């Protein structure tokens, strides 16, 4: 299966490579081998990783053959076994002086590879060389043979660090595009699973794969994805993160409008819901569109677990989301403005914890939150071995010492800690929450609950205006789609979830057979999503 997919991948790549016109005009391949070599030297000047192997053949070795590739990115074993050895074996038997017949023989019988192409333009040849194929030039021929010997080097498939789950597959995507495509294909064995490859980035020429299930995905969305990808005009695509920023409906919003995942089973689930995935060579993060707000509180595990637990966890995640956004703001509003609503005993506690703190609660909260964000960022950036030192410093300085020194109150430390814990419960929204929290905090300090209310309304208004590939971001709540509420905050059991989310407007909506819960369990499992 691996081979089949790799083959198709190569075909598609070939197609796109031909379509795309390079800006530079290297001209056609010159007939003389000397000229070819000169051109290559010129193009690849200072590229010491270029390997040009010259083989002489024919009578008196008059006909010269050049095998050109770049060191390291070709599979050397494959190159030797498929290309060099056969050529060397074949050479003694060459009698003809005719370069054309040699070319014919080489391409038809000698080189044992399933992936052979013919190119006429120099820029095409260069393209293939830089993407890891070997190119064979023959003296006297104005065409060249491209042999696919790219090495599938890279990381092993392993469990993703960023998304862990208790149940479900431990396979995560890797940096290699063909491997990733295989990982998806392995889960959805169906010719309807389409994988279209294109190249993006003038300079990096990164392979991008658009992946969807024909018949499930909305054709319009697929078309829209292609169109938006086609409009990207940049010289470098290094990560799906860059693509994400180009194709998002609203490029300035803090909220994610494009989903990403490292987990194969999650992606398969999304595809089966009718979403479109964008895989990019060189990054394990795969994009999914359209991305809705509700997806940020859905987890892969939910679908593998009892619906009651899953529903409870979802409500908990929503609570965590609200808490991480609003808790510091509510606290500040409470202690600065709304003393009236605090019960007497609590007020004594609050006032006692505030006593001796030189800063107003707002500044205090700001300091503590920034200190926490610093710690978090340091935890991400620093070299692993220093981690322990950081956690000790963080725990002592932030927790104990700041309270003992009278810079922050006990309660504030608790509030910030709860806020921090809650923010990690909903990973897709960590960044949005991080900034919006400050807005709420400032609003609370200026106008109390009123300010918080104004800010909340503003944020919700903003959320309502958002679209992800034309689909309202807050669906199924706004617009209210009763049909899709089955998989929102409360989740119905998987055997009862016989239809896909309607809001995506798939062509085919039914997952299983209605009313046959017991018998169709196995069938239902096929359409489980991640």
């Amino acid at each position, binding site marked *: 299966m691996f081979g089949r997919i790799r083959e198709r991948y190569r075909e598609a790549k070939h197609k796109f490579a031909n379509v795309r016109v390079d800006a530079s005009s290297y001209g056609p391949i010159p007939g003389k081998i000397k000229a070819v070599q000169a051109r290559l030297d010129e193009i690849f000047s200072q590229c010491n990783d270029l390997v040009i192997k010259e083989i002489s053949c024919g009578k008196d070795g008059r006909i010269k053959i050049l095998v050109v590739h770049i060191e390291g990115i070709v599979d050397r074993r494959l190159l030797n076994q498929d290309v060099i050895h056969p050529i060397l074996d074949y050479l003694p038997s060459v009698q003809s002086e005719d370069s054309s017949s040699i070319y014919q023989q080489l391409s038809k019988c000698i080189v044992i590879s399933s992936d052979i192409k013919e190119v006429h333009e120099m820029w095409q040849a260069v393209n293939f060389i830089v993407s890891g194929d070997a190119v064979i030039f023959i003296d006297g021929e104005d065409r060249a043979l491209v042999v696919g010997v790219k090495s599938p080097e890279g990381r092993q498939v392993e469990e993703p660090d960023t998304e862990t789950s208790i149940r479900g597959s431990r396979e995560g995507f890797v940096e290699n595009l063909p491997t990733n495509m295989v990982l998806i294909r392995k889960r959805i064995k169906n010719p309807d699973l389409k994988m279209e490859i294109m190249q993006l980035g003038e300079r990096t020429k990164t392979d991008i794969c658009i992946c969807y299930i024909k018949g499930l995905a909305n054709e319009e969305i697929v078309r829209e994805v292609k169109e938006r990808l086609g409009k990207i005009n940049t010289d470098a695509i290094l990560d799906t993160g860059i693509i994400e920023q180009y194709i998002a409906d609203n490029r300035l919003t803090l909220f994610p409008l494009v989903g990403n995942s490292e987990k194969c089973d999650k992606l398969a689930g999304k595809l089966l819901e009718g979403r479109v995935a964008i895989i990019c060579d060189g990054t394990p993060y795969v994009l999914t569109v359209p991305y809705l707000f509700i997806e940020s509180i859905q987890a892969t595990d939910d679908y593998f677990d009892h619906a009651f637990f899953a529903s409870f966890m979802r409500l908990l995640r929503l609570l965590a989301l609200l808490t991480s956004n609003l808790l510091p703001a509510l606290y500040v509003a409470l*202690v*600065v*403005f709304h*003393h*009236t609503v*605090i019960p*007497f005993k609590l*007020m*004594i*506690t*609050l*006032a*006692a*914890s*505030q*006593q*001796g*703190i*030189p800063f*107003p*609660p707002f500044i205090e909260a700001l300091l503590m939150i920034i200190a926490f964000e610093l710690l978090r960022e340091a935890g991400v950036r620093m070299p692993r071995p220093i981690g322990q030192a950081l956690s000790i410093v963080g725990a002592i300085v932030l927790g104990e010492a700041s*309270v*003992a*020194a*009278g810079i922050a*109150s*006990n309660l504030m430390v608790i509030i910030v800690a709860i806020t921090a814990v809650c923010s990690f419960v909903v990973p897709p929204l960590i960044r949005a929450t991080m900034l919006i929290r400050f807005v709420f905090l400032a609003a609370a*300090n*200026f106008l*109390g609950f009123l300010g918080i209310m104004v800010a909340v309304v503003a944020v919700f208004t903003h959320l309502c205006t958002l679209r992800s590939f034309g689909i309202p971001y807050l669906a199924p709540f706004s617009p209210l789609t009763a049909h899709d509420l089955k998989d929102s905050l409360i989740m119905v059991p998987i055997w009862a979830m016989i239809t896909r989310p309607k809001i995506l407007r798939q062509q085919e909506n039914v997952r299983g057979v209605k009313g046959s819960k017991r018998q169709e369990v196995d069938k239902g499992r096929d359409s489980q999503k991640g």
Partner: protein
Amino acid sequence: MTVKKDKGRKALLILLLIFPLLLAGCWNNRPLTEINIVAGMGLERTEDGKILVTVQVAEPGAIQPASAGGGSGGEKSKPVFVASNEGETVFEALRGMLAVVDKKLFLSTAQVLIIGEKLAQEGIGEILDFFERDHEVSYLVDVIVAKDATPDELLRIESDMDTIPAVYIRGTVENTAARGTVKKTLLIDLFKDMDCKGRQPTAGQITKSSDKEVRTEGLAVFRDGKLAGWLNPYETRGFLFADNELKGGIVNVPVDNGKAAFEIIRSKGSVSVEVEDGKPSMLIIRVNAEANVGEYGSGGRLDSLETLYMLEEKLGEEIGKEIEMALEKCQKEFASDIFGFGIYLHKYYPKCWKEVENDWHNIFSKLPADIRVDAKIMRVGLVINPVGKGE
């Protein structure tokens, strides 16, 4: 070029819009550290006709000293301080207090509002107006009237039971309210009854029982906003039976050779007025009480129906007696309808009420009463073979 200019203008506009927000920032914005948390308040009339306001302020730092090591490293300070100030009006006295205390007084947290006996006798309408108007006072504060002690004295006691005396006082009010010997009166109840002609307000009574203790039992009865007199604990309970406000309590009934104590579990009381020829002719009080036998002084097994019926009857009589005492006192001594017979008339005989409305005090105090109590014994306890007597 123009785009850049536009952007600059937008940025400037946003900046200008932010400034007013900062200017308005401090409006009504007070950190907790900048207010004095008032735990209790007292009002009394001084000899020279001024109003004496006493506040008891909680010191959070002294109550929970474990927190923040800020500032005061001295010896342990007191959990509360009491300050008082005189003034022509409540508001003036309160504001004048700022000359004595360091931070602005925050009244919402007040647990109790103690009204001095003298002030109550002269009328509380005037001072209640301030509490009704001020936005900071919580309507849910407990109002109690001090008997034989000034609010100032009561707020200055140092209780061993709770670090904050006002909280201790509120606790005792809640306890006695559950026992049925005081009526928990919130400020808002007082407002409601003050404006109502068909019902006179009451408030709890507080006395000083020792240097460190107070006693909240009994009821202060008002008439036209002035303190008319006091009901003792038993009368108070009688009133509460009729008022359908009784939460529980122990009623003693004399039996053959000793006393039986009943615990009231549930009680339902209602008042109404009988009207004849368009004139009120009789006050009617109906009470249904359910009780458990808590103590049976004369011993015995309490397994015969006759005994139980007898006890039920006696219990009913006893409750009836308490109600009668309360009603009689209100009619004869105070001429103050705290039961709300007037409200009943107003509701069901509005025409009749209109006629008697202005002279209700007099009419009320002369009407005969029909009190009927139906008491039921629910449980007699676990004892099968009681020790001691009987057997």
